């Protein structure tokens, strides 16, 4: 174990620590020497051009992608081939996907209670209560008995957020949660995410919604070609970006 790892593990305020992370898809070097540590309750927004490795990075955190080099430690548990570790981390880390990925054969309520019942071994009663509470939080308790296919995109994404929250995760990962939504539905999902941020959840969000980033993020990370190019607080990031690459990116997504 390197010194760096030992330090981060002893540090109480750190919940995720990633060091020297490298990932390849065949010959393609997708992530290059990523170092990142995330504090509890911190909100991080990752942005960058497509193919820059931002989704790959957060998908490595719950092992949807397997990294080849470096270490990822989540809440004191090192992510490696040990299935027990992987499942432990997955039940502590919630994820929201671009395409919602709700289970179409289960009702909204069943989507939310599946993991609490089978992974957390909660009683159906307890799981149902918690799910209804969270569905109220995302403002769709009246849809609990419907199937995902009967809901709008924005409603589905809010159900997906509730489903992840039902596991009472310590960290939430968002992988472009609004990219597949119609413009008028983006707002309702972002509002839910802002409320979640205000409640003190640790969040890592991959998004192109710069307004959201500006409002919520403690730190904005800009990635390009598998590397972290720049990380700063929103104020500095938007007004005084350090690198030319960041400036170019910002001018492209803000000026139109």
């Amino acid at each position, binding site marked *: 174990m390197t010194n760096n790892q030992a330090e981060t593990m002893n540090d109480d305020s750190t919940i995720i620590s990633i060091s020297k992370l490298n990932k390849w898809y065949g010959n393609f070097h997708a992530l290059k020497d990523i170092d990142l540590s995330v504090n509890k309750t911190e909100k991080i927004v990752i942005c960058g051009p497509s193919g820059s490795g931002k989704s790959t990075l957060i998908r490595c955190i719950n092992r949807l992608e397997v990294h080849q080099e470096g270490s990822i430690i989540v809440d004191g548990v090192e992510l490696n081939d040990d299935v027990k570790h992987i*499942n432990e981390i997955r*039940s502590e880390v919630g994820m929201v996907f671009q395409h919602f990925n*709700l289970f*179409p*054969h289960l009702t909204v309520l069943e989507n939310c209670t*599946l993991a609490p019942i*089978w992974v957390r071994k909660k009683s159906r009663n307890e799981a149902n209560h918690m799910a209804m509470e969270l569905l109220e939080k995302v403002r769709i308790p009246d849809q609990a008995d419907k199937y995902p*296919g009967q809901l709008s995109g924005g409603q589905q994404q809010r159900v997906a957020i509730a489903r992840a929250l039902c596991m009472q995760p310590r960290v939430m990962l968002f992988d472009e949660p609004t990219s597949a939504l119609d413009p008028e539905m983006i707002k309702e999902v972002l509002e839910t995410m802002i409320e979640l941020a205000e409640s003190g959840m640790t969040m890592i969000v991959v998004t192109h919604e710069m307004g959201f980033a500006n409002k919520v993020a403690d730190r904005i990370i800009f990635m390009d070609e598998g590397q972290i190019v720049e990380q700063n607080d929103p104020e500095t990031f938007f007004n005084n970006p350090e690198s030319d690459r960041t400036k170019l990116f910002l001018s492209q997504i803000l000026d139109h």
Partner: protein
Amino acid sequence: MRSAIIQGVLLFIVCYALLSIYQTTIFNLEERGIKTSTSFFDSVAPFKVGFSPFLDYELGKTTYIEIFYIGVLNTILVAVLGIVAATILGFAIGIMRSSSNWLASKFSLVYVEIFRNMPLLLQIMFWNFAIFLAFLPPPKQSLEFGVFYLNGRGLQTPLPIIENSNNFNIWLVTIFFSFIGVYFFRRWAKKRFFETGKTLPVFSLSLVFIILFTTLMFYALGGPLTIELPVLGKFNFKGGAQLPLPLFSLWFSLTIYTSAFIAENVRAGIASVSKGQIEAARSIGLSRSQMVRMVIIPQALRVIIPPTISQYLNLTKNSSLAMAVGYEEVVAVWANISLNQTGQALIIIAMTIIFFECCSLFTSFVLNIYNRRIQLSER
């Protein structure tokens, strides 16, 4: 107007063709001195039927129409046994095929490609003549599988015996009503949950209720059913039931052959579940087996079931290849032997066709109800 005329002409041609086929057949039959009528139904059939587990057979007494019933029941028997076994085996092989384990996946690939690509008739003859008849031991050295015994004469199985058919029927009715009761209980519990948020352990309560109720009723009715186990006597088994070797071979080959097709359906169904579903299941921490049971299989089923229904129909129809091994199903005893004996081709073939049509329509009707239930509801 023009299309109406064309359709009218076509309809006339079809009707005329059917009429002339009918007239030619009747004419040819009468030429041979056969008057088409159903009067042969009640005459005694002068040949032997060896396997008739449901109806009593007696040479010199059993009539042709009874032979038809025996054939029909034998066909249904092998079809039901085959469908059950092929489904279980097909799902197992299909799931193995989709597994990430190299050996399991390659084994089932080879299994599917071998048995799917060989003509069924060849397989029936191979298993019956080259394997079972050649290698199965006499009854004394039977291969033992728990309460099942396999030997050169067939498969010896336990047999449920109805001691008191009246009470047995009452028992069946009470079971039926207990299921209806459970259905209403579940509806009530669901409604109650959405109104008050109170939940009950619905599944375990229903299960306990059904088990307790049926057991209680069973003893209350004086145990109308007993299971008779096969016991090895001096030369052969006494008690239990025997699936004679032709039935066993046919069942075995139909199962193997159809399971290869079902396995392909299962593989396709599993492959149809999107990657996002698997990622979502993983991201909420489900274990592999939980993911397969609760996310993949339920969604794969809606892709698996429609083509599997047609495999069930194929299996039923394929059972007519039983003639190769001498199993006495409807085509063998009715459309073949009875037809040769009586010459009543028109009626006999028509009845056989209608029987298979009814079988197929019934199977697809029942399964389509199930299919409609599991399809996704969308808005």
